């Protein structure tokens, strides 16, 4: 006979405001099998947990139901608590009377009745819970970092410094990401390259780091502690082991007029190229789309001039499988562009700004390249159309961001600060120039940030106009900016030489496809979702995968670096143990009923279902059945739902338990 303890939590007032918790407790104490029921203000607090532990010992409880918040929040808390007094943790279940009841209802009487029924269901279910032994799995103490920007570099260095091997995968030919493109960084105006390149070199030289540049994630199998990651190393056409990085191939390449993407298409590069002079690794790549050899079959100049013979036109993509125990995702961001969007797209372009067709309307990252000493203009601010020095520059903030009508409602967070920085850089380089900034409001919280913004206005003479711009159009060699100044309530018209748009920060294209490979969730903009907005900001809901940087949401460099180190710390915590305990909520096959149709294997997203032979004592094959590998099973229950003869059961969620819950209603 079960002796069930039922513990009703007030959750401060979150539950008790709408649910009569005392009535729920007194009613539950009458349910068959319930030996004890009570309520308490904060069941998850230390006195609350002590109350449960005491009741388990005093009333010799066999099962526990805690009616409180979502099990996502506190199931582990309460299971740990009952374990400390000798109960198997899987004999403790949670009834969610907060998210499923008090938060969504107003009528106290009805909500109370519903809470009673939810508790009743869980009481019936917990009766049929079995003692489940914890599953332990080994941990591969190697980490994968996806993305070689500042986030990925920081995470990789931290993990590697702790003594663990790190595999870093970067899509581009060089690591460095966006930070390598920046000129100077706020709020101190130190040169981005000067603080970034040493880290890039550290990474390349670190004995614990294996770097795969010009590579992408092909496939991810496995689970926390035991991932198998297939990496596609794209054909570089240059042998990384032979190349010395002398660069003669690039000087001799006849294709010299290819727009340089790293310089936001302002400069040009050759068909065999490194994205920028400080690239790591300093090994060129042949851009096969633009290379004469690949287009016509004739040329091969680079091959002829290459001393070590590193050029290999026949190189193919290779697939490498790396076993890792944890994954840090740091894929970063890209900037929204104002061009016309395809019909039906939820995110709209800016027709009123010329859909990107006015040459001297550029975005913030392009301005960074103009201001950068290593940029296409050598650090001179020259406008793209005619190479003249602009004397009037208009900066427009919140382009794309914070405009629901354009499809993006979030704030891109970094633009207020970098626009202030841009006005300063401009003022430093063009002494007789004037910068105007159209802004909604300045969002500059952060250490020394407000001071920085004030400096732009008070010392660097930027004119800040509170208001939005309604239209941009070309008039002669000027761009007419039509806007409003809402602080004085007048229309403003400025004839500008250059317009810089602070466009929204968006996740990388293909972020959704990578998320699907990794099995992590993402929001409607394709930013990756953390497990808990406040308490688990670097973990994914998928165990063993962590987030760093702007792939999770817009972030500046200090925040990105902090999060990268936090993700690294999480990885190190995971690697501090040799074995990993995992929940034994896994599927089991009833082998005597299974007919081996393997529908379960077809639907299993984790590759956990294997074939197993059933033989008699003479060794004759009787039949083939499905077998679920408990180390791989994620407990999603898809196999259970699919099995036509119901020969698969998910421990803790058996059909018997589910039916018992329904019947309790």
């Amino acid at each position, binding site marked *: 006979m079960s002796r069930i303890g039922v513990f009703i939590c007030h959750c401060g007032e979150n539950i008790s405001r709408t649910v009569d918790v005392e009535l729920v407790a007194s009613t539950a104490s009458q349910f068959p099998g319930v030996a004890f029921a009570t309520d308490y203000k904060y069941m998850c607090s230390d006195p609350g947990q002590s109350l449960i532990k005491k009741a388990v010992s005093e009333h010799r409880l066999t099962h526990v139901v805690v009616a409180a918040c979502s099990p996502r929040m506190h199931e582990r808390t309460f299971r740990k608590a009952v374990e400390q007094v000798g109960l198997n943790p899987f004999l403790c279940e949670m009834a969610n009377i907060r998210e499923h009841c008090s938060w969504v209802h107003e009528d106290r009487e009805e909500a109370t009745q519903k809470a009673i029924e939810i508790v009743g269901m869980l009481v019936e279910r917990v009766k049929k819970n079995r003692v489940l032994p914890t599953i332990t799995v080994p941990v591969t103490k190697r980490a994968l970092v996806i993305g070689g920007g500042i986030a990925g570099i920081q995470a990789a260095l931290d993990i590697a410094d702790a003594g663990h091997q790190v595999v870093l995968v970067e899509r581009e030919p060089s690591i460095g990401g966006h930070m390598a493109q920046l000129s100077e960084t706020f709020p101190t105006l130190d040169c981005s390259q000067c603080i970034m390149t040493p880290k890039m070199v550290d990474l390349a030289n670190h004995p614990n780091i294996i770097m795969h540049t010009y590579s992408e994630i092909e496939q991810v199998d496995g689970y926390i502690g035991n991932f198998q990651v297939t990496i596609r190393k794209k054909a570089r056409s240059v042998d990384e082991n032979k190349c010395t990085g002398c660069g003669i191939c690039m000087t001799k390449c006849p294709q010299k007029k290819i727009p340089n993407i790293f310089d936001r298409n302002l400069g040009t590069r050759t068909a065999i190229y490194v994205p920028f002079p400080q690239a790591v690794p300093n090994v060129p790549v042949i851009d096969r789309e633009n290379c004469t050899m690949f287009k016509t079959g004739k040329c091969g100049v680079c091959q002829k001039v290459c001393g070590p013979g590193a050029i290999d036109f026949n190189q193919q993509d290779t697939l490498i499988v790396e076993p890792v125990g944890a994954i840090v995702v740091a894929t970063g961001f890209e900037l929204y562009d104002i061009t016309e969007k395809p019909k039906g797209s939820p995110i709209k372009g800016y027709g009123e700004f010329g859909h990107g067709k006015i040459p001297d309307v550029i975005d913030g990252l392009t301005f960074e390249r103009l201001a950068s000493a290593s940029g296409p203009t050598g650090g001179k601010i020259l406008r793209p159309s005619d190479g003249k020095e602009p004397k009037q520059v208009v900066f427009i903030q919140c382009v794309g961001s914070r405009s629901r009508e354009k499809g993006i409602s979030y704030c891109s967070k970094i633009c207020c600060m970098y626009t202030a920085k841009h006005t300063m850089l401009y003022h430093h380089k063009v002494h007789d120039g004037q910068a105007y900034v159209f802004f909604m409001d300045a969002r500059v919280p952060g250490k020394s940030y407000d001071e920085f913004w004030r400096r732009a206005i008070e010392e660097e003479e930027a004119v800040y106009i509170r208001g939005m711009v309604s239209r941009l159009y070309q008039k002669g060699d000027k761009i007419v900016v039509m806007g409003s100044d809402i602080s004085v309530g007048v229309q403003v018209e400025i004839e500008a030489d250059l317009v810089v748009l602070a466009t929204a920060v968006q996740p990388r294209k293909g972020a959704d496809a990578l998320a699907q490979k990794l099995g992590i969730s993402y929001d409607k903009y394709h930013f990756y979702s953390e497990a808990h907005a406040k308490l688990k900001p670097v973990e994914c809901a998928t165990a063993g995968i962590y987030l760093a940087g702007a792939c999770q949401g817009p972030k500046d460099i200090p925040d990105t670096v902090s999060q990268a180190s936090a993700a690294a710390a999480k990885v190190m915590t995971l690697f501090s143990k040799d074995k990993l305990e995992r929940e034994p909520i896994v599927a089991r096959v009833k082998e005597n*009923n299974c*007919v081996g149709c393997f*529908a379960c294997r077809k639907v299993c997203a984790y590759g956990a279902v294997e074939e197993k032979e059933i033989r008699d004592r003479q060794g004759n094959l009787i039949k083939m059945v499905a077998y679920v590998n408990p180390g791989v099973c994620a407990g999603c229950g898809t196999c259970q739902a*699919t099995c*036509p003869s*119901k020969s698969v059961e998910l421990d803790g969620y058996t059909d*018997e338990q589910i039916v018992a819950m329904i019947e309790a209603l």
Partner: protein
Amino acid sequence: MTQPIDISGYTRITESIRTEAKRILSDGTVSAVIGYTHVRRKGSTQPILITNPDDSEKLFFSEGCLNNLVVYLTKSKKDVPKTGKIGIVVKGCDLKAVVGLLGESQLKREDIYLIGVPCNGVLGSLINPATELNTKTIAAKCRECTDRMPVGADFVPPVELAAMPQMEATYSDKIAKLEAMTPSERWEFWKEQFSKCIKCYACRQVCAFCYCEQCVCDRNRPQMVEQSPRPSGNFSWHLVRAIHLAGRCVGCAECERVCPMDIPLNLLNRKMAMEMKELFNSEAGFEVREKGPLNSYDEHDDESFIR
């Protein structure tokens, strides 16, 4: 107007089957052949399993060969030899069942030898077995059959198929009628049909795809479906069966033929097949599919039902 159907090819098919069966049994290709044979009543037939090449003369094919013999390859294989290849006579519809079972790991292609029959149709029923095959007496499933010529069989008698006349009263017509009903009329229609069910499970017994060792409807811990022949349990049983067969059923219509209460089971299955075709562009055919439509996810699948 009733028109006769040309089945003159069946005599030559019979001869061909006999020669082939004799050959494969004599040279040891197969250990047994499952086919059709005569019974005493004129025009009637029954399944037969032969292991002796001399018994090949007992085999034959006619418009009375209604059974889908594939069921003898899975759950009704008590008398089938356990070793060696098994030869089996299959019509187009039956062959699709073999293909389905191959995809569901219930058969191995190397374990079977398929004798495909070019088919001009069979009778709807053997109650009056000596009936002539015409556009009225032909089985409903044959009226709109597009798979008369089996594809991918090991042996097909070299017989040309005669042209078929246009036929009415097809399943498509009946489905159109069902779809024209209001939901409540349709509910009443099936309620009445299922109320006839006596839970004899003949439909399950004859179905090549009902191969589970323990049917979910026989489970009692927990009981998923009420087992006595009462309206609610009848409904559940037929709906479970329809859903389990969706995307798999090949339309051999054996369930409908064996139903003693004349419940139009294949009508339900055809309707489900139509839904599968419309939703997932998937239908039972001659190509082995690794994953059925309900066991696979494609990012282009219609998700408009998620709101």
